[in-house]
């Protein structure tokens, strides 16, 4: 019995020793970074840009290898990350918004956004409402004055629905579009009358005189698009909370020291002058946030979307 206890203790000690040395040496091998979209999208571009710097600041001559796992509206990648071993060798980008909706609705999911180990934020984008350049609609008041359902092309019903409910105009969402540029083009073509999208990818359409914005819910773009009523002007500051977030996370229960190493590496990466230079050139700004800050953002989104639950579907 005594001998048995001795052995147990020895094994436990050895295991702890191994674990400690593993932590000290982390990272010992390449790290996998899961991306929820196919190659080429915004998530991929950010990950591609950050990956080599993460590797550089983690040290030990390792690589951060990207793995695209598109599918099921981000569910596949998010589940894969959630259920990976929390050893620091699998991390991934989580897109808040599309992954949050099924959880707010109460779908049976194999992930829980409250439990991820957050490493930090790469970027976020608020939204804006726009119409065709020569449209007689010039404001949210004009939308309301139409007094009929406004044809609204989008990928899904939820986001247009949230804005319509909050701002008080009726809409008829036309779904089935494949992405932002697809539904903005649909508005230019006349399939629909208005769209809601991130200002950064709407820029080209505005600059070329195809569409105009009538409301802006991301204050960072105030200077670039002057004179457009903002969320505050419209008396709906809460709509600034509707953002697409690009967050870096590990599976739940990742050891604190490994997480800290990743947090520090991400901070240093984003501050790296080379990466900053790219960010400026590519017009892909970084908005870093600490793990605590990320948690607050995620909690805030849950709180915000709760009343809109019935709009999902």
């Amino acid at each position, binding site marked *: 019995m005594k001998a048995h206890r001795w052995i147990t203790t020895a094994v436990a000690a050895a295991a702890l020793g191994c674990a400690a040395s593993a932590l000290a040496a982390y990272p010992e091998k390449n790290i996998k970074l899961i991306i929820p979209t*196919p*190659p*080429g999208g915004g998530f991929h571009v950010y990950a591609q840009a950050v990956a080599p710097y993460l590797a550089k600041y983690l040290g030990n001559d390792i690589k951060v290898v990207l793995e*695209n796992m598109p599918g099921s509206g981000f569910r*596949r990648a998010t589940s894969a990350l959630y259920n990976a071993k929390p050893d620091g060798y699998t991390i991934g980008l989580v897109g808040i918004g599309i992954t949050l909706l099924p959880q707010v609705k109460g779908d049976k999911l194999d992930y829980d956004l409250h439990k991820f180990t957050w490493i930090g934020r790469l970027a976020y984008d608020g939204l804006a409402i726009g119409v065709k350049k020569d449209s007689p609609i010039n404001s949210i008041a004009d939308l309301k004055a139409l007094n009929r359902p406004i044809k609204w092309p989008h990928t899904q019903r939820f986001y247009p629905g949230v804005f319509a409910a909050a701002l008080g105009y009726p809409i008829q969402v036309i*779904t089935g*579009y494949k992405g932002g540029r697809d539904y903005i083009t649909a508005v230019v073509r006349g399939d629909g009358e208005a769209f809601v999208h991130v200002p950064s*990818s709407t820029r080209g359409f505005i600059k070329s005189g195809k569409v105009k914005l009538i409301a802006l819910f991301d204050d960072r773009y105030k200077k670039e698009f002057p004179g457009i009523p903002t969320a505050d002007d419209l008396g709906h500051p809460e709509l600034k909370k509707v953002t697409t977030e690009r967050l870096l996370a590990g599976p739940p229960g990742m050891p604190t020291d490994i997480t800290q190493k990743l947090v520090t590496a991400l901070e240093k990466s984003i501050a790296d002058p080379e990466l900053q230079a790219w960010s400026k050139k590519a017009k892909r700004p970084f908005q870093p946030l600490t793990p605590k800050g990320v948690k607050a953002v995620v909690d805030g989104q849950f709180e915000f979307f709760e009343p809109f639950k019935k709009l999902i579907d």
Partner: protein
Amino acid sequence: MLELSLDALALLCTVKGLTFLTAGTLVGLLFGAIPGLGGATALALLIPLTFGMEPRSAMFLIGGVLGSVAFGGSITAILLNTPGMAPNAATVFDGYPMAQQGRAGAAIGAAATASSLGGLLGVVILVAIMPVAEAIVLAFGPPEFFVLALLGLCAIAVSTMGHTLRGLVVAGVGLLLSYVGVDAVSGLPRYTLDYEYLRDGIPVIPALIGLFAISEMIHLSVKGGTVAADREMVRITRIRDGIFAVFKQYPTLLRGSAIGAFIGAVPGLGGTVASFLAYSATVSMSRDKQSFGKGNIQGVIAPESANNAKDGGALIPTLAFGIPGSAEMGVFMGVLIMHGMDPGPMLLIDSKEVIVALILALSVACVLASVIGLACARWLALITLVDVRILVPIVVATAMVGAYALHSSVEDVVVALIFGVLGYLMTRLEYPKLPMVIALILGETAERNLAQALAISDGRWSIFIERPVSLTLIVLTLAFLAFPVVVSTLDRRRSR
């Protein structure tokens, strides 16, 4: 514009420029030839490499891949009855019978020539259309896409050649399978059996790898021996015959290229539908329909010219509005963003020099890929003499890797295997396979665009005949269906 083109040409003619272009071309050929891998995978792997490059050099590399990948896939289609990529699926109809008859060299010669000329014609069409690209993209909305999808589905009936009922049965099954997954309109899952993987529907590329690559490998290993029946025939085959045939059959080439560029420009339809429509249009317009499927060289020229011309077409929505016309274009847009360009209406104004470089590289790569292909054709044809006991394991292994690589998904491999067995049974029972793939692709497109069109029109069906483009397409579809009937009626009258 001319100055920009000359600038780009000067840059391309440097050692660096040519190295990137050649590297891209070789990667494209290789990725095209391996079943399951394709242009999108090749570009995704090259993205990190282009990160540090000057944008125009990056375009040379990418243009190389885009220009060569379609031809790469035709080589395995002809030699092994295994299309390297979905768009080469139509090439197997006549390409493989040619290889079996020992005319692999001629088939590859024709494919290479049709590919490069088709690619160049696609670029010519792109450049000619560029000034009005915007108007064209805006002229095609959900009603037009729906009619186009309908046209594609009608083409199935024409392409089944003697197996009409079987073709329709297979297409029906394909349509049913296309409705698996989350409904794009309502957002609700259908026929997914609560299985997460099926939410995205049956994936086309793994299904295709199964239907063509795996099933053919099962068939070959059951049969034994080699692909080509007669050893001597393979050696005396003349590549030159294939090259000349393309020039002799220039209407087929022109028709294929035009169809390719046109369908390529429709987001979501892509190369598979383009080459399939080019093939069925050629069959339906031919007076000698019986010769197709038995090694008619026109059956190689039509799809091959179409699937290279489609790149020129696919660039139209990509460059004009930042809407990717194909999977490759989706990845290509990522490269543009990495390099600080904004895919969308300002691209052609802000980044003209980069786009000119891409178009130039695309054109040169089309020719370069074919030259490389032709130079190697004699040796490549010898693959048909390799014992299937060696060939089968190699092809199956690469096909499995290809199926997995696409989305790093084991389920995709399982789908490929299931469709492999299904494809083998279909071969044994003489059911055509391509109608299933076309229905699988078009079912979703047709349904989604129909729902969108009716939502736009508040449920009025007249939207399809009120819009001039949609109406024209409806007339074209009717003409396409009526043409064979009219021709045979006229022939009968004349013979009386």
